[in-house]
């Protein structure tokens, strides 16, 4: 049965792209080493063979340049999927993403649009050090005009990427590099997942753990450990940081009266701050404890494994925090 078919996260991304490229001739891929190499992560392997070098386009190492070309192509009838190999390289393309793509609809009074997807990556623990390990999704989540997607399973990846490609607005789509080999059930059919709809990855009634992207598996692991000491954790994944499904997050926190937000971006001024403050506000009269935040340690990501592993929330650290918050010591 197709329902039970398993794909890796990378295969799910590839399948979404292939299906959308077959469906819509306006969709094309542009970026560094996307064609024969299929990116360093091999996520795109095989696409150039099917779609040719005119639709899977290798560029020079020019992030601002090919991002800008994507914007112009999007404004004139195409549907580019721009590949930014490492999320750290967003730093180079911010003007094109933020001052151009995100604003063109508004600045033109709704006459021009930039329907495009910036696919990029996040996540540490690959021993890639400070310039290849960042999770910078907070930056783009801050910007009106953008939508920001953080899939945490192969299933979500396929459905959300198809939505992103069909959307008439610019979308920044973050893939966790450590998740590419993770397997999960992915239907072969054409399905989409709407933006702004959180997904309860595990139901529970004692504490809410809001987790994004790479942190969803960590939260699920922690939830299992919590189960063993009699704490039922609800793990909820917003899936898109914008639009953000505030209602679902607040609802869950109202039910459990306790909440932790876990995300792999730097903690300060990061995604955990927005989500925690949304919950603290919306569920104020229901909370039995302050909403807690767990992001990456506020340091540039170190290379040494002995240090790098200390910078990211773990099952153990989420478990400890939840236990403390529930008053079990």
């Amino acid at each position, binding site marked *: 049965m197709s329902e039970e078919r398993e794909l890796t996260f990378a295969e799910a991304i590839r399948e979404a792209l292939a299906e959308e490229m077959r469906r819509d001739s306006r969709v094309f891929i542009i970026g560094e080493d996307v064609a024969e190499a299929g990116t360093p992560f091999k996520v795109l392997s095989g696409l150039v063979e099917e779609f040719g070098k005119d639709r899977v386009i290798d560029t020079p190492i020019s992030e601002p*340049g090919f991002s800008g070309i994507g914007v112009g192509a999007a404004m004139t009838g195409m549907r580019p999927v721009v590949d930014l190999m490492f999320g750290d390289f967003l730093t180079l393309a911010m003007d094109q993403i933020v001052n151009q793509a995100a604003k063109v609809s508004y600045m033109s009074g*709704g006459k*021009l649009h930039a329907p495009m997807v910036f696919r990029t990556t996040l996540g540490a623990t690959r021993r890639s050090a400070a310039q290849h390990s960042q999770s910078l999704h907070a930056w783009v989540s801050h910007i009106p005009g953008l939508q920001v997607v953080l899939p945490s399973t192969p299933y979500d990846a396929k459905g959300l990427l198809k939505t992103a490609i069909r959307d008439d607005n610019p979308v920044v789509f973050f893939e966790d590099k450590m998740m590419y080999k993770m397997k999960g059930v992915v239907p072969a059919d054409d399905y989409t997942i709407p933006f702004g709809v959180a997904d309860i990855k595990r139901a529970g009634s004692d504490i809410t753990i809001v987790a994004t992207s790479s942190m969803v598996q960590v939260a699920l692991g922690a939830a299992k450990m919590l189960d063993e000491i009699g704490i039922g954790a609800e793990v909820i994944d917003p899936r898109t940081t914008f639009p953000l499904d505030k209602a679902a997050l607040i609802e869950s926190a109202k039910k459990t009266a306790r909440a932790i937000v876990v995300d792999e971006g730097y903690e300060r001024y990061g995604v955990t701050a927005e989500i925690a403050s949304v919950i603290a506000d919306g569920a104020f009269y229901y909370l039995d404890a302050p909403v807690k935040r767990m992001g990456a340690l506020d340091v540039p990501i170190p290379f040494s494994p002995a240090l790098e592993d200390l910078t990211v929330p773990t099952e153990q650290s989420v478990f400890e925090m939840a236990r403390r918050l529930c008053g079990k010591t």
Partner: protein
Amino acid sequence: MAGTKSDLQVDLEQSLHMYQQMAKIRAFEEKVNELYQSAKMPGLAHLYSGEEAVAVGVCEALRRDDYITSTHRGHGHCLAKGAAVDRMFAELLGKEAGYCRGKGGSMHIADPDSGNLGANAIVGGSAGIATGAAFSAKMRGTPQVVACFFGDGALGQGLLYEVMNMAALWKLPIIYVCENNLYGEYTSVGETLAGEIGARAKAFNIPAETIDGQDVQLVYMTMQRLVARARRGQGPAFLECQTYRYYGHHVGDINRAYYRSKEEEREWTTTRDPLQVLSARLIAQKLTDASVFARIEADVKAEVDAGVQFALDAPYPDAREVEQDVYA
């Protein structure tokens, strides 16, 4: 129609049309200055007076569905490509009837109907968009060509070199039009530009030409050639037009002596004015006489006066508008 052999000389009708376009831009900008000086226009504006031959010569060589991208000094480009005076003024005054419903203002006028993908307040910022539009034209298999306008100052932005490289590699139908008006804000190009401008394009295998940007017939004829070449699939070109802005960097830049001399200003306005150059030439060639130009001036003045009145009378956008158009 652009692209046919006979256009390679500029006939009288076309010359007069270009004169009219230039006169319209001049009258428009004079009015913008007036609006600013009388505190009727919010914010600032960067006037195009003096540079009219560039926008008009370039756009005359383009079809309506060819694209342009423009700059912070964009009124001339927009008008030359076909925008209407009244809706331009409405935009400058932040009115709902403006091209961007008042949301863009002077630095963001866009008019897809006339192929204008938008002015841009980031210096060099539209080079990516323009190159992407050319990429898209090629992918879609249309014969569209793109003109990317930018100032000498934009040569400081690395983005330009990134996209010129790709335009050359992929033979994209785009003309990079550099308006070298000798200054970026309050600093002269001599202090900011090493080497020759054209060499920077040639280094990427893009043919480059430098011409007198005050001679609209020359700009038009040169552009004709480059556009035809691009339309034939022979790739990008680079056109440096030497020109001059008559006013300050923006309407508020009145005392300019610390960065450029009055003599220099006088030299350009008196001996190299694009309107005068053209009218004097046509009269000298005995193709027409002064009365024709007087009529044109009167026509555009009437158009501009009516346009500004329309804009002054037009309503502001409703408060609800503020949250609209953020997303499609």
